[in-house]
């Protein structure tokens, strides 16, 4: 009998737990530890942030589902890792702290045979002075509560615009090393469309601010893609959409301070500049959770497990951009020091960024961090679950299930406006996610055809269909596993 502990019930943790439970018989224990009592379908936060969906539409409580599916659930957060146990406990364990009413603050040693760290990112608002959701007129859509607050603020402004007030809107990244440009891109287009729907578009000046060097970089070094019968750069496609929607842009901007209605940033020329706004949505930088790890004697071994995020089978040797290759990227998400620990989704430490790193004239790093979107998060979680199942069933040491982001495609359906007949979506697929410049030297590291873009109403329908399909899947309704990650 094996005990598998999954930390986190986001896309990666929930996918891993549900596949483990489906494929392992009941003598094996699957335990999920996660502080948020709800599962949330994060991509639809964009629609909460424009008031077209309510938080209830994108979440459901985890406890009843897990009880029904025989998954043990602890509403708690991991605080420290003890992969060798300690003087009193022979088995490896994670120290968790309960957050639920009733036993809040209580700690427990949760022992395991296999550990999946799927704790995703810490939303590191503190890394940017003054950036905090709902403060200084700057918002976030990274959680459903943040997105609801953003909508409350925007709704108030729309009312003022209806009375004739002119406003400035700033949307993009809130740190020199933020990632998730895609989410901010979706949000700016959705906000723009909502302002048109409310007949106040002429009252707003909308600006995109980003740490990307080019538009459409998305932390993935941009893309060369098929677009209809043409081949287009993602920068051209995004430029076309922004110009068409009258959205201006500021690039290479490392936002370093936010004051009431003013974002301060450094650009690649080393200039300190500022941009005023009445409403902002700025994606914070993502970081690891600052977990500590200890060996059996209590000695600090955090360096063996973490470099910000969790160390896995990546090649972390520092090297210049020109020498980066897809082989640097992990394949199994297994920690090299403790082979029974894995980290799929955003929880693993990437070897480096995907976009070309750039520094300002003052030496400030202004480079998007690499995104790990929903699809790779789900795929990596499933392959980790499959490897653990093989390890349990066949006492396998060798891991057969592999999935490098350098040999994996991703679909990103970016909402560009909500509405069954008026909505729009920008559908982008990319293969591979990490460009393979050796394999595809003439097409910017990507396979054309599998890397394509398309704009239109169908994109909105697709995004909406995915919303319902993935919530169905997450609820583990009949045949849920037939829906791919």
């Amino acid at each position, binding site marked *: 009998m094996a005990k598998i502990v999954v930390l986190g019930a986001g896309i990666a943790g929930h996918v891993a737990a549900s596949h483990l439970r489906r494929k392992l018989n009941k003598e094996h224990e699957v335990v999920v530890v996660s502080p948020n009592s709800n599962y949330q379908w994060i991509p639809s936060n964009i629609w909460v942030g424009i008031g077209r969906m309510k938080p209830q539409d994108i979440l459901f409580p985890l406890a009843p589902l897990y009880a029904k599916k025989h998954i043990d659930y602890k509403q708690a957060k991991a605080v420290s890792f003890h992969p060798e146990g300690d003087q009193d406990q022979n088995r490896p364990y994670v120290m968790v702290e309960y957050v639920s009413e009733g036993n809040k603050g209580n700690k427990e040693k949760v022992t395991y045979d296999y550990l999946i760290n799927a704790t995703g990112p810490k939303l590191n608002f503190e890394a940017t002075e003054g950036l905090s959701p709902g403060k200084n007129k700057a918002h976030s859509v990274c959680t459903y509560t943040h997105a609801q607050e953003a909508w409350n603020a925007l709704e108030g402004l729309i009312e003022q615009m209806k009375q004739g007030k002119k406003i400035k809107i700033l949307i993009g990244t809130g740190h020199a090393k933020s990632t998730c440009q895609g989410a901010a891109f979706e949000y700016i287009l959705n906000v723009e469309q909502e302002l048109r729907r409310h007949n106040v578009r002429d009252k707003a000046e909308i600006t995109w601010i980003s740490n990307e060097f080019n538009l459409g970089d998305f932390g993935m070094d941009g893309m060369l893609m098929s677009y209809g019968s043409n081949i287009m750069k993602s920068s051209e496609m995004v430029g*076309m959409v922004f*110009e068409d929607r*009258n959205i201006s842009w500021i690039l290479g901007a490392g936002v370093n301070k936010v004051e009431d209605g003013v974002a301060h940033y450094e650009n690649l020329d080393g200039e300190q500049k500022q941009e005023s706004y009445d409403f902002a949505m700025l994606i914070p930088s993502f970081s690891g959770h600052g977990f500590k790890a200890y060996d059996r004697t209590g000695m600090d071994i955090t360096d063996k497990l973490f470099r910000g995020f969790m160390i896995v089978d990546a090649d972390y040797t520092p090297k210049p951009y020109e020498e980066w290759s897809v082989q640097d990227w992990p394949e199994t998400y297994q920690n090299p020091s403790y082979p029974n620990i894995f980290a799929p989704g955003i929880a693993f430490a990437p070897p480096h960024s995907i976009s070309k790193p750039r520094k300002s004239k003052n030496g400030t790093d202004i480079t998007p961090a690499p995104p790990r979107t929903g699809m790779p998060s789900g795929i990596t979680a499933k392959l980790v679950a499959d490897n653990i199942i093989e390890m349990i069933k066949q006492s396998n040491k060798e891991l057969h299930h592999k999935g490098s982001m350098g040999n994996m495609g991703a*679909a990103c359906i970016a909402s560009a406006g909500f509405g069954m*007949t008026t909505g729009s979506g920008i559908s982008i697929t990319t*293969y591979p996610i990490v460009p393979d410049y050796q394999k595809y030297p003439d097409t910017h590291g990507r396979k054309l055809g599998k890397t394509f873009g398309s704009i*239109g109403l169908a994109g909105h329908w*697709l995004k909406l269909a995915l919303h319902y399909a993935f919530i169905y899947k997450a609820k583990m309704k009949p045949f849920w596993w037939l829906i791919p990650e």
Partner: protein
Amino acid sequence: MTRRISKYKRFMMMNPIVQFFKFIYLSIKVLLVVAGGHGGTRSA
């Protein structure tokens, strides 16, 4: 505002009938990328 998407293109992008077929095409295309599989990069 700079018009970058022609009236014809916009019509095609927003026409529900055209987009219905596009929806089916995109669903299949996305599924193919997903079902296209994934693997390692290190073994020769």
